[in-house]
């Protein structure tokens, strides 16, 4: 099976090996075409973002204004902080030049004046590896001023590696841009969107590391070739991250639409001790979890997972066997989003803490069915009411885990409403709370 992003070539991270294997030829090819031609090919290839929302990459690039009195920027998102997600670092380690080449092509396509690759601060090692690769690329003249000489034409661009300081929220695109600007990593209110008002208020495009690493092969081998790999509506290969209760955890590059069960059993070697699967989160910890008995026949691509009631996210598959304590799992997930909420907007700032406190109480064996309903209500009150999608990321696992595993959770709580006496009178006479119909 063909691997596009992480081919099995020894020492591909070395620039000479990369060049020997056809590296930086896509860049030359791209420069012989117009920026619009490049955008067109990426559009036709059907390439979708690998950063979580599976947005069409070519379409996003085409939002950039063609004429602008302001400079334009490109940001590459390597913040990779979602629990269950560890794919981008493989690219940084094993194929950094393909990322650099993709970045250069995208920068050319949107006519960016500068490109930033933002990497989470905890990736010390991978930042070093990328910096080394980038220094080599500069030396060879692929990046920066020397580009014009080396590649002909009039376009040149600098790439800067920007190190995060340990905040999941800085992976959210507008928080990432604030972070690069040296501000607090607060997501921005949208609209305006980055293509109008991005980095330093200038038109900006932002893509995930894996998304960009797919670009050189698309230019080299053609969009038609790419569009035929995997599921037509979400073509290409995907770096699936397998973790949790599997025998062979790791990153697997496979065509989109690969069966979830194949990933777990064929590639991941099944569940240790041949235990049954209780729960699978298919796309990183923020995505709606599936019940073990639900996963049969589910294909791993954006459209199929949507139809199955969940989402591809970052394709980080977390497998949990039958002995897993789901209350602990959910409490731990809730703790993560509580810890990472930037605290800017009210529902997420306050709601993440409330959910965590409720879950901790349930985990201590002090929960009631009332608390389960309350959790769903709190999660629903966060969803859709926040500045950024961390609100949903925090609410989805709670709402879906509890609704999908209601039977499980009911065994972990008492039917008696256990609330402090002082509040009892109040809460029991609780009037109907006006709520939007609970989404499912």
């Amino acid at each position: 099976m063909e691997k596009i992003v992480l081919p099995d070539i020894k020492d591909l991270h070395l620039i000479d090996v990369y060049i020997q294997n056809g590296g930086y030829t896509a860049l030359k090819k791209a420069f012989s075409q117009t920026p619009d031609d490049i955008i067109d090919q990426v559009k036709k290839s059907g390439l979708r973002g690998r950063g979580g929302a599976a947005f069409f990459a070519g379409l996003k690039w085409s939002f950039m204004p063609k004429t602008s009195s302001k400079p334009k920027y490109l940001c590459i998102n390597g913040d990779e902080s979602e629990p269950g997600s560890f794919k981008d670092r493989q690219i940084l380690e094993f194929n950094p030049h393909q990322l650099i080449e993709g970045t250069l092509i995208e920068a050319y396509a949107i006519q960016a004046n500068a490109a930033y690759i933002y990497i989470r601060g905890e990736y010390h090692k991978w930042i070093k590896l990328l910096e080394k690769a980038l220094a080599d690329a500069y030396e060879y003249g692929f990046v920066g001023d020397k580009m014009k000489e080396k590649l002909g034409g009039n376009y040149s661009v600098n790439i800067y590696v920007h190190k995060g300081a340990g905040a999941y929220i800085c992976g959210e695109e507008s928080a990432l841009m604030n972070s690069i600007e040296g501000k607090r990593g607060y997501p921005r209110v949208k609209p305006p969107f980055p293509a109008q008002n991005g980095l330093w208020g200038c038109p900006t495009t932002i893509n995930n590391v894996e998304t960009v690493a797919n670009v050189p092969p698309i230019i080299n081998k053609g969009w038609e070739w790419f569009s035929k790999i995997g599921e037509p509506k979400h073509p290409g290969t995907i770096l699936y991250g397998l973790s949790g209760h599997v025998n062979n955890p790791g990153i697997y590059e496979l065509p989109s639409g690969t069966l979830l069960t194949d990933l777990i059993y064929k590639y991941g070697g099944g569940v240790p001790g041949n235990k049954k699967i209780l729960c699978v989160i298919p796309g990183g910890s923020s995505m709606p979890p599936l019940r073990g008995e639900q996963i049969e026949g589910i294909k791993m691509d954006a459209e199929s997972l949507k139809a199955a009631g969940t989402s591809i996210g970052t394709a980080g598959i977390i497998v949990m066997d039958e002995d897993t304590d789901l209350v602990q799992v959910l409490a731990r997930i809730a703790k993560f989003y509580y810890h990472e909420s930037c605290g800017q907007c009210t529902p997420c700032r306050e709601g993440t803490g409330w959910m965590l406190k409720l879950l901790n109480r349930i985990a201590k064996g002090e929960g009631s069915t009332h608390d389960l309903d309350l959790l769903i209500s709190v999660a629903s009150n966060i969803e859709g009411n926040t500045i950024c999608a961390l609100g949903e990321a925090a609410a989805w696992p709670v709402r879906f885990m509890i609704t999908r595993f209601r039977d499980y959770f009911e065994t972990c709580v008492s039917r008696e409403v256990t609330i402090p006496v002082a509040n009892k009178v109040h809460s029991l006479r609780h009037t109907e709370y006006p709520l939007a119909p609970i989404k499912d």
Partner: protein
Amino acid sequence: MPKFILDGKEIEFEQGQTIIQAAKKSGITIPHFCWHESLSISGNCRVCLVEIEKMPKLAIACSTLAAEGMVVYSESDKALSARNAVMEFELINHPLDCPICDEAGECKLQDYAYSHGNGESRFNEEKAHKDKRVPLGPLVMFDGDRCISCSRCIRFCDEIAKESQLTFIKRGDRVTIVTYPGKQLDNPYSMNVTDICPVGALTSRDFRFKARVWELSSTKSICNGCSRGCNINLEVRNNQVLRLTPRQNDEVNSFWMCDHGRVNTYKFINAEDRVDSPYLRRKGALARSGWDEAFAAASSELKSYSKNEIAFIGSPYATCEDNFILSKFATQIIGTKHMDFIRHFNTSFGDNFLRQGDVTPNSFGAKAVGIFPGKGGLDLDGIIKAVKDGQIKAVYLMEDDMIAFNPELQEIFSKLDLFIVHATNFNKTTELADIVFPASTYAEKHGTIVNSDGRVQRLKPAVATFDVDRALEGMSLSRWDKFGTKFDSWAEGNKRDARSSWRILAGLSGAMGHKYKYGTAEEVFMDIAKSINAFSGLDYEVIGELGAKLKLDSVTKPVIA
């Protein structure tokens, strides 16, 4: 004008206006915490979420631009349930310490909890705790528990005061406000954050725990701290001014006032050293006297000098009405040409926002109503010189502590044979005076002052004296005044026997055989409007609450050195 529909009503808007802005212009307030008309949009509180047809999610009214034909619901089930949800979130970790919170009574969170809250809490967990009673600067105290992280205070410092001093730190429900390392919240406008903080997280260290706000009566007035003339509310309990707050006037001060104006310009009103009746110097010391006795003394003393031996010094602190009558008195009754007033200028006080180098409220008006030397008369320097030389033997000074302002004058002015002074408080100047008349402060009288832009603005009595009758003058009342309380002792101890300077002069001229026909400050102003071109067409009604411009072409701006 394009229109959109809000809850079934057509709302006109201008391109670029947000839903909340356009609604406000049409008199509809969409609930909001973080949005403030003159600050940038932060969109963080989410209480303004509204439902918009054809939009999949609720949108915030404070950042969503109004568009032609847009159909917006702020009271639909969805919008209400989102608002209730946000209110519940705001309240879960809130200490709900309204009974001991200074903000209670003027708190947006409290108000919205009444109107949009659920009335009971589903939150049974331990609340998050943050630092309390943190002094952010010399004048502002912070209570982290009460903060709803709306960022108004931060944006105020960055955007209005233009000194970045505050920031958020930490994340999630640990977020709190601090000053930047090595900095304090000490910009000259710092206390405005206590007004715009929607909750009791930022309170005035000057006002903390002095009163519950509903005990205060509020009177629209003008700051007398400098010639900007910021519009303010004088807030009074039990006949004592307890705080000043800025009052919106987009032509003058927008929503703001400076800290100097707020904390340094009212304490003299309540002070112990107020002049509380006329005083006459007897055997070297000032002694209390009756009004008639004082008028008679002043009258006979003044009559014993020739008009060229008498000089008049008006006041940039007094009203136009006061200065107008002083000028009339000097020229018509005494007949002197020696008249001027003292400029108080402090270049280091002025800035390019509100504060003006002319630190008096009415130098423009004093000059405009006639406080300047007549032809061949002496100006201030001339008067001082003539006092020194003994040519001027009597000085009549209205409301200015000139000796404190220039201690060198002490020796010179002790040479005077007659020194008559109107003063609000005993001071360095009254120490030299032979006759002292008790003048009302700006908080105790009707009148007008003119700011450095030539804008006439009105003062109204907020504190009762023997001279102003609460009922007749229509003075404002607090809730407790209206409904009766043990604190309501307006009619008792605190009233002082002070009068507006114009009224003192009118009394004195009566004693000198010349009756002025004015019964009220308003009547004096009508005469000003009739006789001085710059004021023509103006009356108290036209000036209203927000002031009116003088006709500037007909008056030269006072040159202040």
